[in-house]
C-alpha cells in the first residue's frame, strides 16, 4: 500500500499536498481499496468556504457511501471534473489523476492536527 512521504493525512483517510497557499486533496490508496469500485462522486462548488474537518463531498462505491472531510480550512478553488464521468480514477490513481479538490489554505497551522506518512502508516495498521 503506497503512502507518499510528502503528504499529510487525516484519520478519515484524506490526504493533502501543500504547495505555498494552494493544496490538493484526495483520498488515500488504503481508503479507495476499502471502498472498492468507486462509481459516484459528489464535490463542492468552487469558491465554497469550508472549515477543517467539515464534510465537503461524498464518494460512493457499489456497496458503500462515504463522506469526505476537509483536511484544512480553506476555499475551494478547483474541483476534479474528470471524476464526474470517470470516478474510477480514484481507484486507479488515488494520489494522481484521482485527486478531488484544490483549496486555498487559510491557516497552515491546521496541518499540525494531521498525520505525516509514518504516523498514518501506523494508524492504518492499528485500525
Amino acid at each position, binding site marked *: 500500500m503506497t503512502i507518499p512521504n510528502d503528504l499529510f493525512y487525516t484519520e478519515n483517510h484524506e490526504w493533502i499536498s501543500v504547495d505555498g497557499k494552494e493544496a490538493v486533496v484526495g483520498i488515500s490508496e488504503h481508503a479507495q481499496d476499502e471502498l472498492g469500485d468507486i462509481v459516484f462522486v459528489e464535490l463542492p462548488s468552487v469558491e465554497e468556504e469550508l472549515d477543517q474537518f467539515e464534510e465537503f463531498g461524498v464518494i460512493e462505491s*457499489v456497496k458503500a457511501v462515504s463522506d469526505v472531510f476537509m483536511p484544512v480550512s480553506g476555499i475551494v478553488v478547483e474541483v476534479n471534473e474528470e471524476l464526474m464521468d470517470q470516478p474510477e480514477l480514484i481507484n486507479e490513481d488515488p494520489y494522481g489523476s484521482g485527486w478531488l479538490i484544490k483549496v486555498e489554505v487559510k491557516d497552515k497551522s491546521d496541518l499540525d492536527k494531521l498525520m505525516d506518512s509514518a504516523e498514518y502508516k501506523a494508524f492504518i495498521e492499528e485500525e
Partner: protein
Amino acid sequence: MKKTAIYDEHLNLDAKIIDFGGWQMPVQYSSIIDEHKAVRNKAGLFDVSHMGEILVKGEDSLELVQKLITNDASEMENGQVIYTPMCYEDGGIVDDLLVYRLKEDKFLLVVNASNTTKDFKWIKSNSKLFKNVEVSNKTDYYSLIAIQGPISREIIREIVADDIENLKFYRFIETTINGFDAIVSRTGYTGELGFEIYLKSENGPKLWRKLIEIGADKGLVPAGLGARDTLRLEKALCLYGNDISEKTNPLEAGLSWTVKLDKKDFNGKNELVKVNKGGLNRKLVGFKMIDRGIPRHGYKIKMDDQEVGEVTSGSYSPTLDENIGLAYIDVDKISIGKEVDICIRKREVKAKIVETPFV
C-alpha cells in the same frame, strides 16, 4: 461469528470479508464490477453455504409445507423446486425460500441465512399441528456452492456423473460431482444459466478448489456477495430485509404468481384474500435514475413535493452503466415512464419508473 467450511479458500483468494447475517462472508475478491461482468459473460463461483437448509420429512410433510407456504407444493414432482414466500397470519413475509421435493414425503426448505433461526422456530411450531412430521436444521451439514453464468454448464458437465444437458430450470438431480454425493439444482439468484450444488460440508472446500482449477482457464472467477446483490437487482429479484420483510406482503412485492389464493388453507390466506379483494395501497416497482446519484435502501420518494414511496434497493448497474433501484410507491401514482424525485441526502434527484427486469 460463523464461518462456512469454505472460509479458508476465500482468505487464500484475498477476499474482502464482511459480516452478513452472523456469518463471515466474502463480499468481493477482485472487484464487484469485474465479478458481476464475469457472471454475465462467462461464469462466477459463489460460496452460499450460509443459506439455511431445513429438512421436513414424514407422512404429513406435504401438509405442513402447504400450511407454511403461499405457493402450491401439491403438484410438485420429486426432483422439482419451487420458489415461494412463507407468511405470518397477517400476510407479512417470514421469509422467501426454495422448496425441494426430495421424495413423496421429504422436502428440503432453503432459507435466507439471517432468517434461519427464526424460520426453524416458526416451522417447528407449525409442525405441532401435524402428527407425523419431523423438522430438522441441516444448515451445518451442507456446503452450498453456486456456479452461475453462460458457461457454467460446460464447466461442471465434466465432473457431474449424470446428464445435466437436459436438466430444466427449477429441477434438480441427486448425483455425484467430482465423486461427492450432491444435489445439483438448476437454480440461482443471478438470472443467468446456473447451478446450485448441495454437498456434505467437509467436501465443500475440495469441490470449490476443483471448480476453480477446471474453470479458471475458461473464465470462471470467484464472486462475492457484492456481485450477487447487483446481479439479482438487475433481474429485480427480491432480497429479504430490503424489498420484502415482515412488514410487506407478497402481493405488493409483485410475487402474486407465487400466491395461490385458491389453495385450501395456509398461513396468511385470509389476510391475503382480503388484500387481493380490496386492492393494493403500494407496489414494488423498478426505477432508473435520470439525474446523477445512486439510490439506496430507505431513501424517500416524492412526487409534486408529496411523499409517495421509499427505495428498498438501489445500486449502480454494471451491465447498464446506469443507476437503478426498486421502491414501494403508492399504487395510484405508478405508471411506466413517470418521473419521481428521489431524496438523496439534501437533494431531490430525478428518476423514472421503468419495467423490470432491468436487464
